[in-house]
């Protein structure tokens, strides 16, 4: 059977892509990631969400630590700060404290977030800093060429676990829930549509939102967190899950064999910005001359 071929012209194709908005919010820099890396889907998801939400470019800042994932800010057309390994959250907290109007995204890897940066997460969540933290969890240290990470699966062989990783991985979702996070969701780089929606929802939340994205490192993990394996493991949220029920969310988070995708939990409480305003109000009330 022969299909008649319609010639495609490059500039036509280019125009099509441009008009689709898929390249809006993409910077001129080409990602330095390995072909097939799950992170490409995330950059696509973020630009798509920004486009859909029509976020003013100059009013958004992406802050990252160090890692393959943390190269992210170079690839989007927003303000960006590629900081130090593990320090995206406190830098983002400073930015948001300085300017409430900015949309602030913090992005980084599992090592960046849960190893060296592990001390900061609880406090960002506690304060309910109004930022969106997107964690790229590939269960390995990509940039430094494949060492064990806090979320590496038991049995993974890496250059620092040549006799196979014996440690149980941390459970980031459960941890965040215990920190009092005000929005928590999970997505998978292999489900781009869902991913985009989750990113948009996370950004839309007022307060500290945490989005955990499962993503394969095609170069340094060929056995554990592959597209094939993840594809088989992930599942939808159980029907009727109540995202305001903390215990239900915790129960859900405990099932790491079959990671659920979707919104686990959310609540509304004052943000750090609200808190600052409240303190200023109290201070001014105190120092104001009593008139009555």
């Amino acid at each position, binding site marked *: 059977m022969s299909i008649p071929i319609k010639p495609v012209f490059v500039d036509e194709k280019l125009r099509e892509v441009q008009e689709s908005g898929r390249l809006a919010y993409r910077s001129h820099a080409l990602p330095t990631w390995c072909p097939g890396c799950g992170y490409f889907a995330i950059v696509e998801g973020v630009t798509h969400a920004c486009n859909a939400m029509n976020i003013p470019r100059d009013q958004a800042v992406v802050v990252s630590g160090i890692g393959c994932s943390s190269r992210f800010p170079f690839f989007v057309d927003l303000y960006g700060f590629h900081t130090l390994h593990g320090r995206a959250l406190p830098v983002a907290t400073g930015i948001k404290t300085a*300017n409430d109007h900015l949309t602030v995204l913090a992005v980084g890897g599992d090592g960046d977030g849960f190893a060296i940066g592990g001390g900061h997460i609880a406090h960002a969540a506690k304060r309910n800093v109004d930022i969106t933290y997107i964690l790229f969890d590939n269960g390995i240290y990509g940039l430094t060429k494949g060492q064990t990470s806090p979320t590496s699966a038991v049995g993974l062989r890496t250059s620092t676990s040549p006799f196979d990783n014996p440690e149980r991985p941390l459970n980031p979702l459960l941890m965040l829930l215990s920190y009092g996070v005000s929005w928590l969701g999970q997505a998978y780089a292999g489900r781009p549509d869902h991913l985009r929606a989750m990113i948009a929802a996370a950004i839309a939340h007022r307060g500290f939102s945490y989005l955990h994205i499962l993503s394969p490192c095609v170069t340094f993990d060929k056995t554990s967190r592959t597209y094939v394996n993840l594809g088989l493991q992930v599942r939808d949220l159980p029907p009727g899950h109540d995202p305001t029920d903390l215990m239900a969310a915790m129960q859900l988070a405990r099932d790491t064999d079959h990671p659920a995708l979707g919104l686990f939990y959310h609540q509304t409480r004052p943000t750090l910005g609200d808190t600052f305003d409240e303190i200023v109000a109290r201070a001014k009330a105190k120092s104001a001359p009593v008139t009555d």
Partner: protein
Amino acid sequence: MSKTDIQIAICGSAGDGTIAAGDILRNAVAAAGYRVIGFDVYPPEIRGFGKCISRLRITTDQSYSLKRHSDVLLSLDDSQALPHAGEVRDMGALIFESQPIAPCLEGEHMSARVLPGQIPYGFPMRELSQQATGGGRSRNLVALGIIAGLLGLLPDPFRKIIARKFGKQGPEIVARSLAGFQAGFEDASRTFKLDDVVFAPIGPREPSGRVIMLSGNAAVARGCLDAELDTFFGYPITPATSIMERLATELPKRGRRLLQTEDEIAAIAATIGAGYAGARAATATSGPGLALMSEMLGLATITETPCVVFVSQRGGPSTGMPTKTEQSDLNAALYGSPGDGQRIVIAPTNVEGCYRCAGKAFEMAERYQTPVIVLLDLYLSNRYETVTLEESGHAFVLDANKPLPRLEPGETYRRYALTEDGVSPRAVPGDADHMHVITGLEHNELGRPDDSESMHAAMSRKRHDKLQAALCHPDFAVTRRFGASGRVKVGLLAWGSTFGECLEAVFMAQALDIPCAALKVVMLSPFPAQAVAAFMDDCDQVLVPEVNYEGQFAQLVQGVLARPVTRLSRVPGSPMPVEQILDEIRRLARG
């Protein structure tokens, strides 16, 4: 002598109210128009058995340091004060409890330790407190009354300060405290006076309101406020905490923000984040915190993000001596961050300098787009001085953070443009015309990662060269010469809190006919090589007194100028005695 110059020391155990008494005394005397310099020593434990000493020197004109010998020592606890009996000068007064309750060993009572020539004053302080207030807890106020009575000070300023200090605790406490003071005052007024120590006539000698008493840390906080600090991020640590504590009260009143972070790394990270976003931001810490901040400070250097870090040094290394002073974090301030990461380091030398350096630090951080470390130490942070401040507030010129002009069509914004003076136009988020991404990686003019040989060389040069301008920063003397002009036998290079002692030593040496001068070096990095070299040209011998073991500043001077200096490095945990410096000056002048 018609000029007043009297030093009083109050010594007791933690819990005796020693520091509180010293606080009231210095405020009362300052309110009466005298110049005061005061410094407290207390133990690292909250309670327990530690020694507390509050010293203050009261003068007609501003003095520069405490004296080695006090004119008056008041003991609230002989077991602590005994070792200090010798600190009282000849014909000075030793005031102590005449009827200690706790039995003590032969010779462990102050009366047994009075040296010939010292004047002993035993007062029944506990009993007076008991009688006047029904308890022994106002003993420290009785003591204050005794001092006022003995020295012939007017009681009113004391009463005002006492009422203000205890006001929050309710009228009962105020009344009790006043009664204690009164009891001491009356009892002392009945005994013979201290005829050797003469106070000049009491009365305000400055238009009131312009002279106030501040600690170094309070002056820093005031400098921050007058520089219109937007945000402060900090983590408590002795002796820097009180900067944050003061700002925690003051910033919100002005609609500004302070956040106590989870640690020092977060504090400096947030400070840099806020600076990046266009706010005026600062943090404060001591040596251990500076260590934790060193990686982040490197990030501020390479991203050229303004930030100010106040570092109040204490005894090191490591946790060291948290409540003792030392100048041993200079190396860490200069060199603590890996890589070629020069930054601005300035060190005030007195309380007024704390205020000025705080404000100027923001000017420099923003103008040169760099981290600025303001190096204090416990002695400077906690010392009280009467200072003269402009009624009208600050005179800081903070105009570097201004919006950039719109780009011409076709122009690209280069965040790290290689300009003549090394400073590039800086935009902040919110500016649609000048969007950019910054990174701790080496980068090109656009800010994109670039580790090529030529770019790294150019950016390294830029980052270093731009700081040179700080050496002639407007309205900021990076060095200043004191003492004799022209050629001198001995020249002192002095930095930080030790400058006061150096200056006193120079004056004393001059009185001994030794041609002597001191160069106060306020800017430590970039190093004012020319000014220091010029000063050294005038000196037969150069002496560098500093309170650290390694002679860190001396090493810096030699490192830059390759010219030898004489080190006077001591680690007493307290200010360097003026006499020690004087001895060294005399030794050098002789040899």
